[in-house]
């Protein structure tokens, strides 16, 4: 079963859940990122996501491997949507299963933070008065390539 994918079709959290359910699991933590209409009072009409698809899939798989190293009993599945998203549609869906809830919560939080750091996917806001590619959200002047590569070798 596919566990990490990028798709132009609607993303359904149950597909990620099905990919991680197993008899040893007692807890599933999921995270769903959805298109928000209002950000600080400004209205978004819709979102557009673009990805470097084959690399993005590899990076999602890498996050899954990192999770399994950090929390050996946890299993992850992640799907990310691309193309045009209407308000409240799912952009990203993450499901983590584990025997107990603590690791599941930690790993799902870890997954979304890593997605926002290393997965080549970009969001474009479409407002009433214009558009903008979003990026550099952490206000880093330049990316720290070295740091990302070191982490990959851990």
């Amino acid at each position, binding site marked *: 079963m596919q566990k990490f994918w990028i798709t132009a079709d609607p993303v359904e959290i149950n597909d990620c859940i099905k990919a991680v359910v197993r008899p040893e699991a007692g807890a599933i933590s999921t995270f769903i*990122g959805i298109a928000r209409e209002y950000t600080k009072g400004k209205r978004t009409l819709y979102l557009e*996501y*673009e*990805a*470097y698809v*084959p*690399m*993005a899939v*590899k990076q999602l798989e890498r996050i899954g491997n990192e999770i399994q190293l950090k929390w050996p009993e946890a299993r992850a599945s992640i799907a*990310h949507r691309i193309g045009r998203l209407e308000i409240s549609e799912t*952009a*990203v869906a993450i499901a983590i299963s584990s025997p107990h809830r603590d690791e599941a919560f930690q790993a799902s939080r870890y997954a*979304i933070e890593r*997605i*926002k*750091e*290393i*997965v*080549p*996917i*970009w*969001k*474009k806001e479409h407002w009433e008065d214009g558009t903008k*590619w*979003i*990026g*550099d*959200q952490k206000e*880093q*002047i*330049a*990316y720290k*390539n*070295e740091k*990302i*590569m070191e982490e*990959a070798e851990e």
Partner: protein
Amino acid sequence: MIQVLLFAGLKDKVGASTLDIQEENITIDDLRHKHLAAYGADNLLDQAMVAVNEEYAEKNTILKKGDVVAFVPPVSGG
């Protein structure tokens, strides 16, 4: 030949999502300064990470014939 991939704001600025460049055995930095300086995208290129053949790479990596180098602007998925 080396293929360059561009995304998001960088793609819009350069006006292309792929560039085919007749080079080999050249670092990413050198390729950038020699072939991409004309597009007025220096700030965006400074901010970008780079990937070679779908893996993140250092900017002093030497590109070989057939390599695909991607300039990855700050990501905003999720």
